[in-house]
């Protein structure tokens, strides 16, 4: 009886633990994010003999326009990697203090994106400050378009009072979210253009992050993608 119990336990043990061989980190098999109201599990491909298929297995694209981007997109902007994104997904995305932004055009986004991402094409951040599409996008980011404010009030803000460091003549960034912007990878200029557009609008630098690896590195690590509905 004892022998039967031991054998059964040994047979059942692997299925109970279901540990993955290829984890996200040494002590994290997978994470889960909400995407389009559904729970998506982000994990890596477990087949250790798998060779990457699809468009992101290409090594070369014409440069220009698809040129290698610098590690630092602009002074004061942090470049992040996958581990920072996983932490972001488990903290800022859950408490809604942050957004993961796919800055590519809709054609790219609709073919597949990183789970939990929202799509704001980089072109939006080059629009005029009074353009409704830009105001919509900035509203999602937590930034509010300001009406005309009095000179006295603006002077007080410029002295550093009334959260003046988070406001300019056009925008109130007091409730601006922390952002990670990404695009196709180290050869893609879409998210750098978006980031530079946000800097020009006055978005707080400490709230901007650049995932330079983008879809290229995400795919090369065998990480889960979703296709928007």
């Amino acid at each position, binding site marked *: 009886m004892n022998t039967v119990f031991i054998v059964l336990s040994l047979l059942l043990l692997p299925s109970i633990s279901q540990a993955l061989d290829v984890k996200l980190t040494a002590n994290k098999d997978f994470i889960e994010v909400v995407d389009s109201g559904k729970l998506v599990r982000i994990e890596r491909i477990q087949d250790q003999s798998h060779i990457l298929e*699809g468009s992101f297995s290409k090594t070369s694209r014409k440069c220009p326009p698809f040129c290698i981007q610098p590690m630092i997109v602009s002074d004061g902007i942090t470049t992040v990697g996958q581990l920072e994104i996983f932490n972001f997904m488990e903290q800022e995305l859950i408490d809604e203090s942050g957004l993961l932004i796919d800055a590519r055009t809709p*054609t790219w986004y609709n*073919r*597949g994106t990183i789970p939990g991402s*929202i799509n704001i*094409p980089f072109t939006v951040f080059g629009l005029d400050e009074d353009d409704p599409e830009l*105001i*919509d996008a900035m509203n999602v980011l937590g930034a509010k378009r300001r009406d005309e404010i009095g000179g006295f009030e603006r002077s007080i803000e410029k002295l550093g009072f009334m959260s003046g460091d988070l406001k300019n003549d056009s925008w109130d960034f007091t409730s601006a979210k922390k952002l990670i912007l990404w695009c196709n990878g180290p050869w893609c200029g879409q998210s750098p253009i978006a980031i530079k557009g946000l800097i020009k609008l006055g978005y707080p630098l400490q709230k901007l992050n650049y995932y330079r690896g983008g879809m290229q590195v995400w795919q090369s690590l065998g990480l889960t*993608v979703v296709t928007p509905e």
Partner: protein
Amino acid sequence: MWFFKKPIFLVNTTLISILLSISQAGFAQSSSNYLDALEGEAENLSLDRKTQSKRSSRINSSSSSTPIPNSISNADGIQPNLSFDDFMLDLKANYFGTHIFIQRLSNPQKQEVYSFYLNNNNPRAIRKEVIRISKKN
């Protein structure tokens, strides 16, 4: 003041204006070329099949009072054939910038936008129509 009437000054000013126009047109052209290149590259795009997700069932996330749209560009359009009040509520919830602009319009102009929406529910087209109407003021 006599200097500004000098022919050489006028020629230089004209030359600078022409060069600025060319550089602006060149910039617009290069932006357009970049977008064309992007769309061309995306045409035959495919991702690795083994990375496609397996979604779990829908969950009701009620933590946010304002649902964040997945896509700002939103080519699918606003839900068609909404009542005027529901149309305005949808704009307020999902297209706040457009909503702000509409609030500045007169009631007949708001109805004009609503009539436009009944024939074309594309958010981009609606935005353009709102701007066109607002410029009449």
